[in-house]
């Protein structure tokens, strides 16, 4: 780095900052070194001596991290164990083992082969998924960091090679590779800025400072013979605590969290830091926080398990029936059946011991009827889900062109759950907003500037315009009235439209980041011509001076970029630069500003002395600087939350208060972040008197120092004069409001959980139309008491309880159908509300509200809220977030969605689905979720149908064989049934089925409700399918048995033997189940045709091939099709009638349902099929707008409310008019 850069950075922030950076110069009594004894404080770190940590007892884990489930050795046992945890698989394993004994009704191969196939496939999938996780870990493990290699030399090493005790140097914008103790930074006083977005989601930078004693270690060479010992706590997951001692040069210094740099946070605004590694890899706080990602199962799958249990019961039942039947037959019938030689039997058929034989037979029967349990169900579902996931991954509509990141289904077993989501819990920063601020509007001296409209406004206006054009039809009730007033509304419509048009048509200037201001009155120096130029000048001065940013020369543009603590400040500085006030240099005591005069092009560089800086914190909600300009005048410049600033105005400083607060309201409604700006002129004497006191307080030490400082600061920040207000757009991500609108129309509830302040959260709420003017906001907060006594807690709780019940009553008493409530609650209150005795009231209140915003919530609380919603309502929840602070919530929710944005990977790693932007959520849910839900639901139903239809025929046949356990089908047929003959069509159903096209899904978000209402997997439907299976099995069996009874079936006089009957029956089954699936499908491509008809063809082909094989393999099925069945017309005729009679009831049922009770997608299918939408576009458009759910959030609701409001006004007007007429 150049020398100048180094100089610039030799700022001593501690001299400037009033609160956070001041370090007591003497140790206080209570800050004596911690006495670290006992369990939990065993860690010893020998700094700069990583070798010590290679052997016990100081051997700690390396920095290698692994999040995989298996490794090469454990994979086989563990994965197999996982597989056989499924009851069905365990059953099949048992059956396969038993098939090796003489009890079996089948050859062992026919039991083992499908099982091996199914389990093998599932395991292959597991392995693949784990491999992906492994690759992701590797990516992290192979990041590089500069590490001290001895003798004062630093070199790069992989993260995974880092050991405890290593000294590392982290450069700007790099992640910390492990938990570090900060030794020194590029700033002289050992300060560095850290972004902890990945840890807690907070976007403002945090200041960390090193110990005074390690400050000299700010050079590579200095580490040559650096030795120190750290004794500290053991690894633990608490992010905000740290207890330890630093032993250096025979002195012991206590350590606290402000010296600790946590893994996965990022160094900002600081060129480099040196640190020593304390916790590595899985010991680091972030990894300790990582809970094992729970394996999630979808609702459908859980229900499927229940069905499997039902089938198991059925299986046991019919096995019992058949073994009792067998015992009876063996006892009473068999002694007479001489042809079985009953006198020479084994235990299996012993007429003298029918009980024993019966028990043996029970086992046989359990295996025989195993076809009731669809062995291939799990594996088919898995295959389908993987393919569905591939569709999601490859969906170009969810591909972010800017970043090149596609959507990714990281676990494929939740696809169908996407179609059943009821509540979305969303993070704010990085998810809804892009954490980028645009300076958009301002109000100076009571005049509002800035023509640009926020994205929300534009979209709302657009929506309003299009809504208005169809409104007449929609509100047909007030038709006449509407017509009369059409003109009035029409103009506003035109106005809106022209506004949009101008916004769109305006030639786009090269856009400057963070700046979106358009108003010629202020731009290009024109402000000097305004009548209030003096105030405007002050306004700009406040923008340029009242901040803590550092300018950084940008080599490419020749200008400056600003490193600011919060993005707002950056936006202000950029704005000021554009207005001609360029902040160009900061020294220890001064700020240099280049002011461009309107008259002359050349800029004048002015110096402002910064006398004091009273910085921002969440309690003060304001920041002030005291500056002395070149003429020696001292000013206090202040910016802060409007409520705070307004109450500090002097009497004569309230000139613009009314106008400004009106503007502030407007801005707030438009979803903008606002700050009020004010100043105060200080007399020299006044200042010095204050400053003396301030310095006194600053240097005193004591427990109430903070409070004292605040009090003193408060003294000077009074009698302010209001200058104006700023409005910054917390830039929403692309398409967020539209997406929220659509999701709301689809009937989803959206909760916002954010770590940000309440004001910010509310602003974003407005920006996303989750809140709107006229919505009743229920703010639940705690009475502010810092006491932690039991009583205070109790009182706070009671207070909250009162608030909750009151609000609940208010909602109950509300008459207006359109009234909407919004619940806003902060983290502290939430901690009470989430306690057991309050949480149910809280939940029921929250459910009644149209939108819920929780602010200042910790990651833990996010997870708790998610759990509350999930368990309290019993509905499916989806959590979406981008930062590490969202991990808990993502893991807790039924579905976790990670935004694979710019920051970190924790959220994505923990998530089930990752998308690049929030707006893709719409497509993910409304299209893919909807499809996947229907596909899987139908697929599972069909599976049960198919296996019941097949399995029961085996049972019926038993009654004809004296329950002996003989199957009428050849073993090979049965083997192929599940694996080949009927698997592909159902997979194609699961992968390709769509009831309506994706465009229609998006146009009619209401269709999504079919999922959360679970229309396609309720018991009615499941039992219906099972009934259908039962019916089919009866028809197939009894028709065939009667057709192939005792007479000749062949013109050659031959009678039907078992092979003939079995084959004919099996043919009927193949036809029936494939016809059924063809009837079920509503979307055919050549693939479905190929699979369905191909399966039938395969069956015949198999029969031919099997018949051609050696009779030793095929047995009685030898040449069966070509010689016996093929030439017999009865066979073909029987197939036809059985297939037809099996399909008729289903066909009749669906046509009856369609005729009388069509579901939404049926009607839409028909409209599409007859191309009615093209003929009657009016109707199509009308239906589309009607299909929107009655929502209380989103634009549409906002627009509706506006229209209602307008109508109400007009109505009032007309009624007063009519009254006047009468009178």
């Amino acid at each position, binding site marked *: 780095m150049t020398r100048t850069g180094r100089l610039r950075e030799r700022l001593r922030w501690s001299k400037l900052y009033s609160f956070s950076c001041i370090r007591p110069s003497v140790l206080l009594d209570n800050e004596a070194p911690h006495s670290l004894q006992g369990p939990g404080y065993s860690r010893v770190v020998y700094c700069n001596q990583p070798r010590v940590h290679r052997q016990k007892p100081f051997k700690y884990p390396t920095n290698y991290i692994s999040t995989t489930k298996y490794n090469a050795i454990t994979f086989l046992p563990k994965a197999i164990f996982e597989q056989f945890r499924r009851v069905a698989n365990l059953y099949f394993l048992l059956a396969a083992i038993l098939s090796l004994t003489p009890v079996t009704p089948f050859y062992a191969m026919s039991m083992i082969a499908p099982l091996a196939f199914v389990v093998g496939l599932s395991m292959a999938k597991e392995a693949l998924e784990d491999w992906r996780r492994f690759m992701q870990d590797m990516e992290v493990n192979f990041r590089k960091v500069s590490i001290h290699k001895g003798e004062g030399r630093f070199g790069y090493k992989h993260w995974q090679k880092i050991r405890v005790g290593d000294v590392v140097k982290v450069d700007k914008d790099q992640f910390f590779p492990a938990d570090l103790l900060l030794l020194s930074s590029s700033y002289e006083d050992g300060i560095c800025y850290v972004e902890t977005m990945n840890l807690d989601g907070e976007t403002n930078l945090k200041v960390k400072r090193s110990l005074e004693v390690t400050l000299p270690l700010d050079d590579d060479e200095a580490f040559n013979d650096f030795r120190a010992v750290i004794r500290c706590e053991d690894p633990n997951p608490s992010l905000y605590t740290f207890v330890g001692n630093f032993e250096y040069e025979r002195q012991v210094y206590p350590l606290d969290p402000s010296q600790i740099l946590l893994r996965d946070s990022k160094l900002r605004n600081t060129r480099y830091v040196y640190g020593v590694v304390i916790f590595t890899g899985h010991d680091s706080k972030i990894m300790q926080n990582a809970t094992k990602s729970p394996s999630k199962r979808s609702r459908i799958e859980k229900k499927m398990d229940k069905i499997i249990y039902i089938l198991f019961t059925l299986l046991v039942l019919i096995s019992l029936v058949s073994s009792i039947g067998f015992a009876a037959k063996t006892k009473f019938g068999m002694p007479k059946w001489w042809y079985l030689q009953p006198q020479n039997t084994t235990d299996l058929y012993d007429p003298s011991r029918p009980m024993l034989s019966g028990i043996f037979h029970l086992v046989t029967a359990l295996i025989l009827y195993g076809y009731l349990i669809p062995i291939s169900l799990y594996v088919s579902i898995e295959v389908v889900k993987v393919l569905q996931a591939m569709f999601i991954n490859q969906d170009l509509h969810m591909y972010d062109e800017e970043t090149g990141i596609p959507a990714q289904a990281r676990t494929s077993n939740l696809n169908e759950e996407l179609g059943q989501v009821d509540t979305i819990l969303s993070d704010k920063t990085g998810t809804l907003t892009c954490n980028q601020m645009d300076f958009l509007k301002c109000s100076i001296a009571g005049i509002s500037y800035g023509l640009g409209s926020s994205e929300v406004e534009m979209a709302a206006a657009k929506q309003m315009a299009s809504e208005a054009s169809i409104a007449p039809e929609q509100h047909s009730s007030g038709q006449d009235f509407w017509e009369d007033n059409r003109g009035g509304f029409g103009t506003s419509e035109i106005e809106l439209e022209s506004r949009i048009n101008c916004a769109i048509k305006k030639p786009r200037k090269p856009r400057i980041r963070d700046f979106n201001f358009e108003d010629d009155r202020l731009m290009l120096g024109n402000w000097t011509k305004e009548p209030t130029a003096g105030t405007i000048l002050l306004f700009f001065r406040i923008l340029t001076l009242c901040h803590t940013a550092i300018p950084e020369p940008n080599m490419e543009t020749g200008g400056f970029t600003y490193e600011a603590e919060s993005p707002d400040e950056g936006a202000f500085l950029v704005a000021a630069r554009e207005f001609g006030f360029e902040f160009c240099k900061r020294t220890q005591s001064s700020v240099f500003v280049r002011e461009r005069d309107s008259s002359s092009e050349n800029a004048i560089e002015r110096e402002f002395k910064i006398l004091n800086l009273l910085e921002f914190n969440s309690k003060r909600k304001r920041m002030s600087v005291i500056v002395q300009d070149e003429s020696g005048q001292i000013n206090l410049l202040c910016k802060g939350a409007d409520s705070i600033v307004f109450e500090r105005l002097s009497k004569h400083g309230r000139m613009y208060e009314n106008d400004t607060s009106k503007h502030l309201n407007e801005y707030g409604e438009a979803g903008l972040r606002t700050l009020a700006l004010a100043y105060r002129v200080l007399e020299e004497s006044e200042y010095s008197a204050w400053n003396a006191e301030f310095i006194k307080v600053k240097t005193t030490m004591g427990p109430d120092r903070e409070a004292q400082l605040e009090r003193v600061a408060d003294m000077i920040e009074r009698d302010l004069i209001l200058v104006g207000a700023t409005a910054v757009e917390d830039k929403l991500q692309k398409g967020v409001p539209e997406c929220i609108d659509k999701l709301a129309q689809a009937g989803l509830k959206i909760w916002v959980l954010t770590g940000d302040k309440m004001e910010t959260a509310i602003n974003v709420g407005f920006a996303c139309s989750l809140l709107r003017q006229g919505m009743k906001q229920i703010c639940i907060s705690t009475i502010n008491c810092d006491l932690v006594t039991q009583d205070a807690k109790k009182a706070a709780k009671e207070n909250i309880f009162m608030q909750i019940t009151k609000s609940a009553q208010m909602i109950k008493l509300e008459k207006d159908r359109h009234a909407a409530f919004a619940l806003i609650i902060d983290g502290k209150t939430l901690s009470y509300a989430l306690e057991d005795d309050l949480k149910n009231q809280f939940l029921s209140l929250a459910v009644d509200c149209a939108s819920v915003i929780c602010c200042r919530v910790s990651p833990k609380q996010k997870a708790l809220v998610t759990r509350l919603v999930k368990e309290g309502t019993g509905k499916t929840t989806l959590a979406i977030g981008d930062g590490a602070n969202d991990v808990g919530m993502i893991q807790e929710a039924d579905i976790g969605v990670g935004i694979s944005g710019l920051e970190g990977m924790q959220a994505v790693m923990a998530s089930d689905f990752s998308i690049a932007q929030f707006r893709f959520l719409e497509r993910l849910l409304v299209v893919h979720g909807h499809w996947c839900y229907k596909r899987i639901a139908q697929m599972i139903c069909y599976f049960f149908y198919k296996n019941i239809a097949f399995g029961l025929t085996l049972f019926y046949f038993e009654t004809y064989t004296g329950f002996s356990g003989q199957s009428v089908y050849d073993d090979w047929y049965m083997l192929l049934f599940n694996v080949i003959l009927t698997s592909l069509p159902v997979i194609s159903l699961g992968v390709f089925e769509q009831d309506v096209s994706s465009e229609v899904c998006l146009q009619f978000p209401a269709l999504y409700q079919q999922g959360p209402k679970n229309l396609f997997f309720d018991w009615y439907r499941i039992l219906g399918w099972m009934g259908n299976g039962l019916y089919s099995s009866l028809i197939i069996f009894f028709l065939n048995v009667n057709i192939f009874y005792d007479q000749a079936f062949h013109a050659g006089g031959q009678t039907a033997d078992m092979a003939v009957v079995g084959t004919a029956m099996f043919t009927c089954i193949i036809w029936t189940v494939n016809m059924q699936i063809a009837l079920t499908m509503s979307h055919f491509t050549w693939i479905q045709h190929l699979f369905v008809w191909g399966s039938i063809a395969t069956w015949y082909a198999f029969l031919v091939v099997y018949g051609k094989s050696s*009779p030793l393999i095929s047995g009685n099925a030898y040449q069966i099709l070509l010689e016996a069945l093929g030439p017999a017309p009865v066979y073909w005729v029987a197939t036809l009638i059985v297939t037809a009679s099996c399909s008729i009831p289903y066909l009749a049922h669906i046509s009856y349902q369609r005729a009388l009770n069509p579901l939404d997608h049926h009607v839409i299918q028909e409209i599409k099929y007859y191309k009615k939408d093209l003929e009657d576009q009016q109707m199509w458009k009308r239906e589309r707008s009607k299909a929107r759910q009655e929502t209380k959030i989103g634009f549409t609701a906002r627009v509706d409310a506006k229209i209602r409001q307008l109508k109400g006004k007009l109505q009032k007007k007309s009624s007063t008019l009519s009254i006047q007429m009468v009178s």
Partner: protein
Amino acid sequence: MIITSFALVGLVFVPIGLASLSASEQVVEIVDRYDIDCIPEQFQNERLAYIQNSETNKTCTRNLIVPRKMNSPVYVYYQLDNFYQNHRRYVKSRSDKQLRSKAYEQVTDNCKPEDKANGLAIVPCGLIAWSLFNDTYKFSLDSKVLEVNKKNIAWKSDQDHKFGSDVYPKNFQSGALIGGAKLNASIPLSEQEDLIVWMRTAALPTFRKLYGKIEVDLELNDKITVVIQNNYNTYGFGGKKKLVLSTTTWIGGKNDFLGVAYLTVGGMCLFLAICFVLLYVFKPRTLGDPSYLSWNRNAAGHPS
């Protein structure tokens, strides 16, 4: 659309039903149960003893009247009842390997308990072969012998590929228990068509098996005399024995069920078609009528 498809199915099925019924009608079938009548009066109370006694005369003469003209070939069947040829123990008790080739003569593992006699492998082994049906029929018309052709009563493929021409019966029915028929040890299995037919186990406990073919036409009211050697023991398990003479058509033997089933299903389809027509007339719903969309119905209680 659904109406037309139902109507279409109905319209197709009814003719098929009629066709099969008429085909079934054309079949002439004579069924004669003889198991009880063929036991002499004095043995009626101890039928089992009679049949098991090798000394008794088992010959029995039956007269059959031809009800309609029977065109050649007339198939001769024996029908057994309550005989569980499909019992698992029975079905499994055979050795396809042994039947097929001389080389596998010793492979009798599956044939228990009828695998070995006096320590030597039985060919053909197993319960199925052991219990081979052994009643015989001799037909004569007006004291003229009616030849029964016992060739080509089994499936050709069975004869050619499943029963070896080099496999000769050995040690058959030589054990302590004598089951059914004995086999001529000088004729290879591939020529023993009775055995081949028998080895095709039936699916149901009531079954017919082809005995032979009479290759002359039988005229109306022809009186056929059958001399039965009533050897086979069905008395032990209370089974019936029947002699069946039948002609065939394209649907095989007499099978009214198929035709009736077709007519029923076809009739039902037509009925459904009419129902849907009525439904359509009384409660019409234009396809793609948007008023049926759920939001329209929920909103204003649209007349459905």
